[in-house]
């Protein structure tokens, strides 16, 4: 028996030795192969298409013009991404929707783990949207006052007979619609619709059927170029009006929105002196630009890099201004 076992042992040993030899060579040859003039840059792509557009356009410029080695990560926005920047795992976030202002995240800014490097040129708008075709029959829906008494237009299986349904937004977005509905005295049932793809699935299905739908939405968003939407006018902002649903106070006004969406770099990258830093700092474009690229990627299903290249080729002057 021992003899037979030894025989089996030799076979396995040979196998193990072969694998070990390969492994040893692999270890020896790994690493130390890539080193570009500009060095490595890590950009973080977030879960909305606009973010993808930002990242791939900047990636194109850094790779083609500065010969950087760009890596794209997909870390969840907010705290996970900020912690990653504090640990030097991510260099750049190109569009932050005020996550840096969330109380538990403020520390990342005050300790300079993440360094703001200005706006990316895009203004974020949040509000209540309806399909424009509804205005033909109900011109009063231009403002919230027109909704009052007509809520049952937005009736669905989920709302009681004379109430309407309001489709809430992605859990990661700022929302105060429950409080707004209550404080404005509207007979609407707020329905959470889950992550953005889920919400999109719901309102686009109703849109395609030409049915009424009222929902939380925002701009810039490439779908706004495909679907003709109208933003319902909510009460104008006044002093003391707040957007934080959980906080006590008056919520009965339109969303503050985001006059600027900020870019952030990690402290390590900020000190690196990489030529890429300059491009990131100067990177600035418009909602129309971003929607154009987003639409190529999501609407036309074009490869992300190709879509970015299309835009870059068309906007040489803008790109050159980032490089100066």
């Amino acid at each position, binding site marked *: 028996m021992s003899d037979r076992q030894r*025989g*089996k042992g030799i076979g396995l040993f040979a196998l193990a030795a072969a694998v070990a030899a390969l492994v040893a060579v692999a270890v020896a040859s790994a690493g130390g192969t890539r080193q570009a003039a500009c060095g490595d840059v890590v950009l973080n792509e977030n879960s909305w298409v606009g973010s993808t557009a930002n990242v791939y356009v900047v990636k194109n410029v850094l790779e083609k013009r500065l010969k950087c080695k760009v890596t794209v990560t997909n870390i969840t926005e907010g705290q996970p991404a900020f*912690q990653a920047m504090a640990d030097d795992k991510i260099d750049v976030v190109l569009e932050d929707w005020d996550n840096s202002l969330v109380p538990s995240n403020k520390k990342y800014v005050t300790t300079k783990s993440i360094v703001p490097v200005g706006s990316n040129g895009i203004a974020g708008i949040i509000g209540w949207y309806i399909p424009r075709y509804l205005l033909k029959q109900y011109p009063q829906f231009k403002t919230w006052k027109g909704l009052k008494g007509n809520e049952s237009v937005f009736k669905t299986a989920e709302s009681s007979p004379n109430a309407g349904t309001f489709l809430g937004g992605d*859990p990661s977005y700022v929302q105060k619609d429950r409080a707004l509905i209550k404080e404005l005295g509207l007979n609407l049932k707020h329905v959470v619709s889950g992550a953005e793809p*889920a919400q999109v699935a719901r309102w686009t299905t109703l849109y395609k059927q030409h049915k009424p739908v009222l929902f939380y939405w925002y701009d810039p968003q490439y779908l706004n170029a495909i679907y003709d939407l109208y933003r319902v006018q909510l009460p104008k902002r006044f002093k003391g009006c707040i957007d934080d649903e959980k906080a006590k106070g008056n919520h009965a006004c339109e969303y503050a929105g985001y006059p600027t969406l900020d870019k952030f770099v990690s402290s390590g990258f900020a000190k690196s002196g990489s030529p890429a830093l300059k491009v990131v700092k100067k990177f600035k474009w418009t909602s129309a630009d971003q929607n154009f690229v987003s639409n190529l990627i*999501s609407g036309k299903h074009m490869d992300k890099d190709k879509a970015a290249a299309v835009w870059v080729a068309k906007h040489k002057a803008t790109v050159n201004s980032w490089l100066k």
Partner: protein
Amino acid sequence: MSTITEARAVTTSVVSHVPWWRGKIVQVGAIVGVMWLAYRGWKTEYPWPSDLVWNGLQARFDSIQTYLIDQRLEGGGGLLFSLFDGFRVFADNLVEWFNNLLVWLTWIGTTVAGTLLAWRFGGLRAGIWAIAAFASFAISGLWAESMETLALMLAAVGLSILIGVPLGIAAGRSRRFNRAITPFLDAAQIVPAFAYLMPVVLFFSIGYAAAVVATMIYAIPPCIRITALGIRRVPVNTVEAAASMGATNRQMLTKVQLPMSRRMLLLGLNQTILFALSMVVIAGLIGGGGLGAVVNSGLFSNPALAILAGIVIVVMAMALDRITEAVANRTDPTKRHLDATARRRLRIESLVVAAAIAGTVIVAKAIGVSGEFPESAGIRQRAVTAQDWLLAQIQKMLDYVADPTTWVFQVTDATGTFILTRLLLPLQAFLVEAPWFTTLGGLVLIAFVVSGLRPAITTFFMLALIGFMGVWELAMDTLSQVLVATLIAVVLGFGLGVWASESRTVSGVMRPINDVLQTLPQLVYIIPFIYLMPVSIVPGIVAAVLYAFPVVVRLVERGLKDVAPEAVEAAGAFGATRGQILRKVKIPLAGDAIMLGVNQGIIMVLAVVVIGGLVGSGGLGYEVAQGLVRGQFGQGVIASIAILALGIALDRVTQGARQARKEDIA
């Protein structure tokens, strides 16, 4: 894919001919009737009293988060953080090293090595599975991502085994240790991964290490459980015989218990791999990269690509499942009896395989084969993958699904609305709006009737905890969805399980479907359902049903097949028809296994509550998801604890029945 649940099924035994539950159904019905009357009488008048809520709880949890972030950023934390840092560097390097190895071998070398190793230890079919998997990585154009995921799996599974097997052995040999560790295992499997992503990120930053840790938390429990079961299943007389021959404790383990439970240990490996693979997408959120990252970014920007990556994950899971299962069966010492010639042949095979792998890699490196499967080749750089074609096909399907003018939509939309208005909304209203004390009392009484005193006490404390944390309404909302999803899953699973037990073909067809539904990331297949059933809660229910019913099918099928053949033969001798045997003999005798199906169905449904929250179910799932993404740690933790409490309560109500019975028998 035999999950951990089967392991539990084994412990049930069929003794009584009178189903224990007959009388209880009437009692439960009476309790529900009283609850219903209370609901009609005092609708919405008695919500959970605010005096019985600890309001500062969320803020407390939030302050833990703030504290941790402060410690992390200001270089404090000392030893604890440096320990975590050490592990982080180690795990990061390990994954990177595996990844480099797979790339260094070149794509041809990796394929040949994987296939030959699978063939050598698992046989021809295993080899075919391996080559099919590598082919799918190449054809989908996701080679590099697949290798990254494979490397992550190698590291996560390896470390899980390293921790899980010793703990499993300890749990198998000591009942006390087993009892001490079980609550943690339950918690690790029910608490949604979303809830612990934040602490994981704080302790391990983002990247491979964080992904490995998140995966391990989920993959170690089945490893421990199956190992323990394997050790415990070694026949008592064998252990006693060895003891009487004077085997030491150590000899007992290494010469008797481990070799005899070898097959179970390998099945444990198999389960660990599958559980680990089901975490790929979540791991992608915190830097796991690979296919998980493709799914995550694709969901928003290119759903077809997300679906393609999801399919590749399934192929990888199925291949690893079949290969490890084949290895487990082929190398089982209790089944395999080798003579000298067979051993010599195997030895030669090993040498040939080793030589072939080494030879292939050397040649591949010499002629400059690239590390990753190329996207295009030849002078004209023609695409050699079928990615574009595949994406176009998937997109066509998606476009069809998203078109509300097709007949399919007419059917699914109506079905969805029916489930919503007839089942979900009434039940939701009943549970949320009924006076809190009748709901609480009713549920505890049901637990008492079905399972006995101790489970009832546990149920009471769990429900009270939910109310105390201030999430009573959300939890009742979730409970209504869990009940509806379980009901549908059990009805569907029972029917298919009975059918599968009677027909080999159906049984054969169910297995791959089961595999796909358990490993395909839910978010991938649920998006089409949102288009088909655009009514809030319903897609979440669909996700839960699809995830849970295969388990019910499997447990029901197994329960019916395990019915003692004597009983069936006796009935046949009396001239009973096939239908009569099924209805009068098999189903009553398999009652316990079927109840286990219900119990496991509920647990599986709870496991997808967060996914439901992401597709419009609201309730606790939404709170957890929002807690992570909006940096509200406390909110996420409270909702997660509530899900766990709900899970324990429901488990006691249903599983307690078997335990009470077992105690009766004992």
